[in-house]
């Protein structure tokens, strides 16, 4: 049993080494720079990035102002409700 395992391990190792030898030139080639003619250069539209950045800032600030205004409106309404409830309950002790 042990012998069988040893021989299969040896066969596997030999196979792996053979594969590595076969792939070696390809791997080495992948490390080299190659000249490509007629490649399309990536051109990103700067205007869109600037517009997105400025738009994000002002929209975020405006949304925050709206959220504060809504919060204040809610608190003011709750205060009004509470005061009218207290008025209905009669004079304070």
């Amino acid at each position, binding site marked *: 049993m042990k012998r069988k395992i040893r021989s299969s391990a040896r066969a596997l190792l030999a196979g792996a080494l053979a594969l590595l030898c076969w792939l070696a030139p390809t791997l080495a080639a992948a490390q080299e720079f190659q000249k490509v003619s007629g490649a399309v250069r990536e051109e990103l539209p*700067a205007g869109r*990035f*600037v517009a997105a950045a400025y738009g994000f800032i*002002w929209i975020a*600030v405006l949304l925050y*102002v709206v959220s504060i205004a809504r919060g*204040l409106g809610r608190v003011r309404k709750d205060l009004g409700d*509470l005061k009218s*409830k207290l008025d209905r309950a009669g004079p304070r002790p």
Partner: protein
Amino acid sequence: MRSLGTAFVATAIAVAVGFLIVPTLIVGAPLEPVMGLVQKIFYFHVPCATMLFLSTFVCAGGSVAYLFRGSERGDRLAASAGELAVLFGLCTLVTGPLWGRKAWGVWWQWDARLTSALLLELIMIAYLLARRYGGPAGRKLSAALALFAAIDVPLVYKSVDIWRTVHPKTTVVPTLDPRMRPAFWSAFLLMLLVWSLLLALRVRLEAARAELAALELDAEDILEAAS
């Protein structure tokens, strides 16, 4: 309430000025020779980052007043500044990658400046979460977090000088081309004005909430006595 209305009008005017005058100055500023048009994000990216630092320091100052003197006003100021830190931090972390994608070719780099700024934003988000969901000890826990955030601010600022990063160094603003300065400083002043008004409004909201909470406690006693 009248002064509140005035503050809202002032905020609206400041935003209107931001939309009209400052972009005109920014458009008129010369193009940066290497980065070109995308460099113009700088005029609001840097003020946003500065407001993040300022908000964090104000939040920490209010937290110190609350922790060591039990100041409720300090706590309200800290809560308001904490929210502003998250808001301006978000603006910084969104505009930065938009600039970086064009200038560096990548949206994000795990370098010292970007990582420490993200960490600061996360601490401030943790501050708000601890405050909201931390239960009775939440306010004290969040105040302690604000102190850690304040310690992170100098680290974020100096990170570009200490470590090698892709981010521009702190010398960018002092050595700015004189023709770019009016656009930058007007944008900076505008952002500072907007920040001050937002802080004033937010503190007012926090004060109104505290007033409501106190009145609710009184009302319970009064209504119980009346029934």
